């Protein structure tokens, strides 16, 4: 084992914020995850990449406990989350932004933004949020679902920033958005990283993933097929393309 690998191994043990080991998950009787194992380090942006149906979204939903039937281990720091209910997991400091964005139609933009309760200190203040997302302030009184797709995505991310959670799970924030909006979302993610948030991102858009992430977990058939650093991704695009089958 060369020294570089040892050093990497040490830092893995030292700073794993979230450790997932041998995670399996089921929807009713059908098994979707088959023993996923990976770590998320404090302060990094990690993407889960892979084909449609590989199990990326299910992985996030399993971490959050939205998928209830799951085995293996999900540890946040020293704490085991398997078996806990969704609200208990959220209160440990994990925030989740689902693929469908889940903006509530019966709530105004302001109500949507202020809905998640403050769970711990260190979250963004209401003024801070409106300052960071001026569009949302301008449309605070409109119905949540009257916003454009990009604005809805911003709202969906913005509202989990006030809870004080430091680990964010974002499911395909770039999906279905115009390039200029995707760029804005990318900038937002980098800004959040600078502020010390740890982010797990599900992405199909490889160019987007490349711009924002430190490491990439390749998911295939409910398992981790490979873990690549940003540099690996740069040099080994062919390998990645073969994983994604594009």
């Amino acid at each position, binding site marked *: 084992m060369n020294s570089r690998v040892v050093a990497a191994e040490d830092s893995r043990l030292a700073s794993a914020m979230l450790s997932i080991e041998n995670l399996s998950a089921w929807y009713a009787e059908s098994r979707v995850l088959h023993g996923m194992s990976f770590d998320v380090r404090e302060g990094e942006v990690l993407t889960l990449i892979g084909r449609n149906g590989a199990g990326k979204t299910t992985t996030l939903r399993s971490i959050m406990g939205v998928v209830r039937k799951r085995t293996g281990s999900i540890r946040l720091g020293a704490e085991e989350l398997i078996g806990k*209910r969704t609200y208990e997991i959220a209160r440990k400091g994990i925030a989740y932004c689902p693929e469908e964005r*889940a903006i509530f139609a*019966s*709530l105004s933009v302001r109500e949507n933004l202020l*809905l*998640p309760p403050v*769970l711990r200190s260190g979250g963004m203040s209401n003024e801070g949020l409106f300052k960071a997302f001026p569009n949302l302030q301008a449309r605070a009184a409109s119905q949540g679902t009257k916003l454009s797709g990009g604005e809805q995505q911003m709202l969906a991310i913005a509202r*989990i920033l006030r809870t004080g959670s430091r680990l964010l799970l974002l499911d395909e924030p770039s999906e279905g958005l115009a390039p200029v909006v995707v760029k804005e979302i990318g900038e937002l993610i980098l800004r959040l990283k600078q502020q010390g948030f740890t982010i797990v991102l599900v992405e199909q858009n490889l160019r987007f993933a490349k711009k924002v992430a430190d490491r990439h977990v390749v998911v295939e058939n409910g398992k981790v097929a490979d873990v690549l650093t940003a540099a690996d991704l740069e040099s080994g695009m062919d390998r990645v393309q073969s994983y994604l089958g594009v």
Partner: protein
Amino acid sequence: MFENITSQLLFGQILLGLINGSFYAMLSMGLAIIFGLMNVVNFAHGAQYMLGAFVAWLLLTFLGVPYWGALVIAPIAVALLGMLMERLLLRRLQNLDHLYGLLATYAVSLIVEGLIRQRYGSTGIPYDNPMPGGMNLGFMFLPYYRVWVVVFSLVTCIGTWLLIEHTKLGAYLRAANENPNIVEAFGINVPKMVTLTYGFGVGLAALSGVLAAPIYQVSPSMGSNVMIVVFAVVVIGGMGSIVGAMATGYMLGIVEGLTKVLYPEAASVVIFLFMIVALFMRPSGIFSGRSEGAR
């Protein structure tokens, strides 16, 4: 055919319609709140309404607690029973088809009605009017207690509506109606919220029961009688629509009252005619349009 209608009769029936409407509105609102969050058609609602009236009568008869005390104590007591029922029974059914919740709550209502009938018989028991008297308006006589019922139910309905539409608590409830998983992922204890919401809906039913005790007689079947109409109201207003339940409740109460004056033979069917027409024209209810097809 209308020449014999005196103003006394007309306004008397409108008032009676408004009274019935008050109960329809409060009961269907509770049903709508419960259905919105839990997807359960609460067939025990009528039994819970009846229990409210019975607890008020028991409090008065055995403990000497007057009407005003019962108005507070009975709804809380029945709501607690409801929350127990949610924890022990309904929670186990939450991932199954709607039909299971409907059947289970129907079973509970039959059991509760049967037990009360067994113990206290099926004849109605009178409950003394706590506000006797009234005023003569010239064109009609207006009993004080009936005014109280209409005003109190309006305040309760509007209060509940404000709570749901304009408070943070209401925002949680509306959001959880649409997507309980995400609300829970924000760190909100949704299971507890479901228990409390069911308790609130049941408490509204029991509160209506206490209000009804001095007007109608307290009897085991008082709930099932009114619920047939209330289910029609909920269908017309749109299942799960709070405003729809409220507005339709008052409206149909008055329509029913007016029919009694204009064409008494149709009075007992007019609400169901409305239901048929409404179902033909807007199958999801005349006040629906929000969060339809969200699940």
